[in-house]
């Protein structure tokens, strides 16, 4: 601290009255009580997230997330373009698409988990909706962007391998669903600080499993489609269950910064 700053520090504060904070809280509560009647009238319109509200949430998604998602898509498509030239590599395209799918979640889940774990009042203030609704809106945005990503990836993979788009989409969705289930589970079980690391480990583990399975058995053959479908439906049901539990736990999030 400089001499000048030391001198300025001599302008000391007086202590406020003991009940000053409580008085302020009481006045705020009175104001909120008086205002609640007006709010009730508006409550109906605020019950469901409106499209405009969801659109405003897009601005709260970090640019880094959009850039990473774009970069991942470009990388995956670029890799497929390269593989198309080498025939022996064509059979590696489907695993690549499957592996890339969980990584999409990894990119945007770190953005989501901050608000989820912190229970930020700022988020509620900025959106004028409850944290639960803000979280739901963000999930819708992420869901839509992931759907676009996977559709583009599947179309590209289908064009490269001459397989059906729906079939490729299924191959992408199953690892994607597995990653979703894992992340939703981690969201409730793991502390916010270690979430990014745990989910990265999960993504790596999943990629390794998909890759090793493909090396050992020819799991992209038609005979295995039933297993893929079964895995898809089971994981989808699990996602719904995990989502329900995650939103339920959002109600009990304490306010902290």
């Amino acid at each position, binding site marked *: 601290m400089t001499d000048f700053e030391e*001198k300025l520090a001599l302008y000391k504060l007086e202590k406020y009255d003991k009940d000053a*904070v409580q008085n302020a*809280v009481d006045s*705020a509560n009175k104001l909120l009580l008086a205002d609640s009647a007006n709010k009730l009238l508006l409550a109906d319109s605020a019950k469901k997230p409106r499209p405009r509200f969801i659109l405003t949430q897009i601005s709260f998604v970090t640019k880094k997330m959009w850039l990473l998602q774009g970069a991942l898509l470009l990388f995956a498509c670029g890799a497929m373009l390269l593989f198309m030239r080498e025939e022996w590599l064509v059979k590696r395209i489907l695993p690549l698409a499957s592996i890339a799918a969980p990584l999409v979640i990894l990119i945007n889940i770190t953005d989501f988990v901050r608000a989820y774990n912190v229970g930020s009042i700022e988020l509620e*203030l900025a959106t004028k909706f409850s944290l639960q609704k803000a979280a739901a809106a963000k999930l819708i945005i992420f869901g839509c962007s992931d759907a676009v990503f996977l559709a583009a990836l599947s179309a590209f993979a289908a064009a490269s391998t001459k397989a059906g788009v729906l079939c490729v989409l299924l191959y992408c969705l199953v690892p994607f669903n597995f990653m979703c289930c894992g992340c939703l589970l981690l969201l409730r079980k793991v502390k916010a600080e270690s979430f990014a690391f745990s989910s990265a480990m999960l993504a790596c583990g999943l990629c390794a499993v998909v890759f090793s399975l493909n090396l050992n058995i020819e799991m992209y053959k038609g005979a295995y489609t039933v297993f893929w479908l079964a895995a898809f439906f089971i994981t989808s049901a699990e996602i719904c269950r995990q989502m329900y539990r995650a939103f339920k736990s959002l109600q009990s999030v304490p*306010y902290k910064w």
Partner: protein
Amino acid sequence: MSDMAAEEIIRRHYDAIFAYCYRHTGDREAAQDLTQETFLRMLKCFDKYTHYDKLQNFLYVIARNACKDYFKKQKPIYLAELPLQTAKENDTDTALTVRSAVLTLPFKERDAVILKYYHDCTAQQIAEITGATLAVTKYRLRRATQKLREALKGD
């Protein structure tokens, strides 16, 4: 906003906002009133809240406006009266000089000094709070610091 959230905000930010108002007014009672007024205004106008993740800055903006309104309503204070009016038993001469030097700065310069030296805000943050450009904020800070150094010379 729920009353629980409002209480949490008040309890968390009361000290900072009180300190800000006190250093603007130099008066404990007025600072308490202004702090309460700040939180009430915040509740009334939280629809305008756009400072994502920076609630404290939003509160400084409201407190700043509350202080401005307070000074508009005040009768003019003669500079010579300030130290005598606000002198406390345990204040040293230097402390009194500092106090009166800060309080006699023009509002905008005082605001910049308070935010920088007592609330550890950066010039960029001060610019955002005061709604001025970064260049103007830096100029105000330089000018205010110069004035304070002059006033505190020899103490």
